[in-house]
C-alpha cells in the first residue's frame, strides 16, 4: 500500500511537472473589452513581428512577449512565428538596425502578461493556460 502510494505520488508529480512545464497549453489573450474573438495565425504572427499594428476591427494592437527561456515563449514562437530564438534574433536585428521597428515589449512571465492585458485593451499576449481567469479573454489556444 505504501509502495502504491509512493508510485502514485511519483506519477502525479511527473504528470504535474510535465503539464506545468514542457507540455503546458499556451493561450493568446486580449482584454475582455476587446471586440476580437479570434485571430488567424497570419495576423497574429504579423502583430508579433511588427508588420501589423492593428486588430481586424481597426483598433491598435500592441504585442507583449515573455522573456527568452519561458516555455510559453518557445511554444508561441515555434507555432505562430515559426522561428527559433536565433532566427528571431536575426529577424529583429534586420528590422532594428534598418529603423523598421523595435521588438515587442518583454516581461518576465505569464502573470505579468496577464496583468498588462487585463489593464489595457491595446495589449495582446500569450500565457500558460493554467493562468487563465476572467480578467482576460482567450482568442487562440496552442496545444
Amino acid at each position: 500500500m505504501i509502495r502504491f502510494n509512493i508510485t502514485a505520488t511519483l506519477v502525479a508529480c511527473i504528470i504535474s511537472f510535465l503539464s506545468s512545464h514542457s507540455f503546458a497549453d499556451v493561450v493568446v489573450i486580449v482584454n475582455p473589452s476587446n471586440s476580437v474573438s479570434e485571430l488567424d495565425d497570419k495576423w497574429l504572427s504579423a502583430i508579433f513581428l511588427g508588420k501589423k499594428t492593428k486588430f481586424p476591427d481597426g483598433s491598435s494592437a500592441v504585442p507583449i512577449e515573455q522573456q527568452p527561456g519561458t516555455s510559453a515563449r518557445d511554444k508561441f514562437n515555434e507555432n505562430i512565428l515559426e522561428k527559433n530564438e536565433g532566427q528571431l534574433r536575426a529577424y529583429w536585428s534586420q528590422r532594428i538596425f534598418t529603423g523598421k521597428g523595435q521588438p515587442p515589449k518583454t516581461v518576465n512571465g505569464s502573470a505579468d502578461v496577464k496583468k498588462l492585458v487585463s489593464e489595457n485593451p491595446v495589449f495582446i499576449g500569450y500565457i500558460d493556460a493554467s493562468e487563465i481567469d476572467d480578467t482576460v479573454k482567450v482568442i487562440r489556444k496552442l496545444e
Partner: protein
Amino acid sequence: MPRTKFTIAQVTSRLMLASCFMTPGLSYAADITWSGFASVAAGQTLGSDDAEYVVDNATGGAYDNTLRFLPESTMAIQAFAQVNESVSATVQAVAKGSNEKSFDTSFEWAYATLAVTDNTKINFGRFRAPLFYYSDFLDTSYAYYWLRAPTDMYVAPYSTTTGVSLNDFRYLGDFELSTQIWTGEEQIEFLGSPGELTDMIGINFMLAYDWIKLRAVYNTMDSAIEGLGVDTKLIYSAYAVIADYENFKFRSEYGNLEDDDTGLEDKFGYASVGYTIGNFTPHYTYSEQDRAAFFLAEVETHTIGIRWDYLPGTAFKLEYSESTTEATPCDPMSGMCLPPQETKIEVVAAAIDLVF
C-alpha cells in the same frame, strides 16, 4: 573622405547627453532603446605575393598576406526614441576598421521618421542607399550567413545617402509589398579621387510571399569626379530573388550600372545556396563582375563558408574565396590599352558576429 569622424566613446557620450536633454517634459522620450552589433573578423590572403583582396568597397578595407583584423571588423551602437505619437528618431553610429585608419566612426543612419499613416513613413536625414538587397543591414552581418556579402555585387564606393525617403509597407492579400522612394546626395571617393553623387532619385520594390522575396530597384544620379574627368548621369537597376524554403536557402542578385553619356555598362551578380543543419549553415556562392563603364575588368569568385549559430545573438563564421580578375589597364587620356592581365587570389577569414 569628407565625413565627420568621432571615436566611439565620443559618439556614446553625445548620444547619452542627447538622451538626457530629451527626457524632461516629454513623456515618450524616456523610452530610449539602445541596441548594438559587432563583428570581429580576421583574415589573410594565401600565397606569398603582396596582392590585396578588397573586402569592403566602401572603406577600401583589404586583406593581404599578413593576418589582418582591421579590414572588416565593425562595431555599432544605435539609439531609438519615440518622440511623440508620429515622430521617432534613430541614430546609428558605426565604427569600422580599414587599412588606413584603425577605426573610423560614421553615422550610417541618423534620421527622424514621420509616420504619415500606419503603412507609410517618411525618413528625413541620413539613411542607407538601398542599392542592393542587403544594403540596409550590410554591416549587421549577424543577419546573413556570409561573413561578407559578395564583394563582386556590393561594389558601390558608398553605402549611405542624405536626403528624404518614403517607405511604404502593405499587405496585398497574402503578398507583402514594400516600396521605397528616395532622393539624396553623397560625397564619395572613387579610384582614389574625391567626387560627389547628386540628384539621386530611386525607387525600390520588394514583394514577399511565404518563403520567397523578389526585389527590383531603379536609381538615377549625377556623378562628378573631378580627378577622373567624370561628369555624367548614371542609371542603376538591380534585381534580387531570396528564398528560404525550410532549411534550404537561395539568394541571387543582378545589377547593372550604365554611364548615360557613353552607354558603357558595369554588370555584377551572384547566386548563392545554403543549407541549415542544426546550428550550422554551410554555403556556396558564385559571383562575377563585368566592368566597362570606368575601367575594363572581369572578375569571377567562388566562395565557400560556414556559419555556426553558437547561441542566439552570437554566430561564428569561416569563409574561403578564390577570385580571378582579368584587368585591362587603359590610359584615360589617350585611351590606349595594354593587353589584359589575369590575376588569381585566395583569401580566408573567420569572424564572430554579435547583436545586443
